[in-house]
């Protein structure tokens, strides 16, 4: 469903991604781990071309993402995205945050968009906040609204960019629960996170990145019990021994 073939990316002279090869199948949950600055988020943001790649091939649903002629807006409607800082629209109510893209980008009627929005708000467990403004919600609630917003365009793929990193510890669980439910329903997901518990429990595959390269690729059982690469071993030992 998502295929990276020898993808490189540069910021000027600095190489952020080096020779990325990765294939994500339909319904698969891939968790990307690695120290900060390792290029995880950049790789994720290439998938819907919030970042341009410099060379190599990147396809989503057999459509070249890195082709200038690709209709980006059409492609992006198939890919939902959840950000570290939620990025809800502060001037719009929760319900209007969710219905905006379906109405404007998909051309869905207002009534239908509102119905869909309520369905997903129920699903993430905060239907009662439909008429609140984002600033009246806790971080965990805001992120659940952001997930509902991502789902409302009915994407085939969901991208998560450190979705719990900006949350108070006690709110992490409610967001991860929503993501777990989504994974169980068979959504194709690529998740950049530091939540090892989530990776262990939900991931079909774990990708470990360092210095812009994919260093190790394994099932969660293999990765957490016996990481092959030294850099991954060091990373895990630092996480577990503090």
């Amino acid at each position, binding site marked *: 469903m998502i295929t990276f073939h020898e993808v490189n990316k540069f910021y000027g002279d600095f190489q952020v991604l080096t020779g990325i090869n990765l294939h994500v199948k339909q319904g698969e949950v891939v968790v990307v781990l690695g120290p900060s600055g390792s290029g995880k988020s950049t790789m994720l943001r290439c998938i819907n071309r919030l970042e341009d790649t410099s060379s190599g091939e990147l396809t989503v649903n057999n459509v070249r993402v890195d082709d200038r002629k690709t209709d980006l*807006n059409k492609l992006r409607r198939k*890919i939902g995205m959840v950000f570290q800082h939620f*990025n809800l629209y502060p001037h719009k109510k929760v319900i209007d945050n969710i219905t905006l893209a379906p109405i404007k980008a998909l051309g869905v009627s207002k009534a239908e968009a509102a119905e869909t929005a309520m369905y997903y708000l129920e699903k993430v467990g905060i239907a009662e906040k439909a008429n609140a403004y984002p*600033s009246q919600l806790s971080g965990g609630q805001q992120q659940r609204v952001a997930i509902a917003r991502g789902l409302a365009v009915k994407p085939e793929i969901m991208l998560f960019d450190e979705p719990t990193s900006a949350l108070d510890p006690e709110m992490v669980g409610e967001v991860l629960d929503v993501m777990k439910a989504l994974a169980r329903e068979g959504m194709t997901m690529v998740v950049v996170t530091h939540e090892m518990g989530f990776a262990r429990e939900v991931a079909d595959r774990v990708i470990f990145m360092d210095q812009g390269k994919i260093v190790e690729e394994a099932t969660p059982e293999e990765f957490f019990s016996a990481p092959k690469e030294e850099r991954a071993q060091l990373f895990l030992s630092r996480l577990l021994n503090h």
Partner: protein
Amino acid sequence: MLDFSILTEYFPLYLEGFLNTIKASVLALIGSFLLGTVIAIFRISGVKLLQWFGTAYVEFIRNIPILIVVLFFSWGLPSIGVKLDGFAAGTLGLTVYTSAFIAEAIRAGIQSVPKGQSEAARSAGMTYIQTMIHVILPQAIKLVIPPLSNQFINLIKNSSVLTIVAGLDLMYFSDKISSETYVIFSTYIFAAMFYLVLTLPMSYGASVLERKWAKNS
């Protein structure tokens, strides 16, 4: 002290000037807002040629005296065959001069909306224009109101440059009154009061709006 006979005797002249000042200010306000918005959009368009033009326009206009801009429209244009009366030339100069400052205020407002806002909208498949209209501009307008109201107050005060091209504004008639009566102090104090009648409500209105929006965000 204040000589109130000046005000009563010359009230019709003051009034004519006052009304012309309002007319010039309103025209220049609308014109400079539209022109400034277009220039601001040029500057953030990402199209090299437009960006270059927008930057050159802003940097050139706002770094020369307004007097020279106005003189260009009243004396410069006739030399290439375009004749304007004092009021038209003055109002046009005022519009062009103010638009450079307004362009900067609007550009700064748009660019201070966090990048994540447009990323969220674009990643959901909305177009650049849809993102601007529904996500960026509604947030930018709140950030732009304070600097914009400052520019509009400056515009009203700067409209006094119309006097040097015989633009029949409030300052022009005040000069006329003082040269007829040789009363300088009172004449210009009354003129200042007429300007305050226009500018004070604007400052007040801006601060009310600002407080109202601060509550909602």
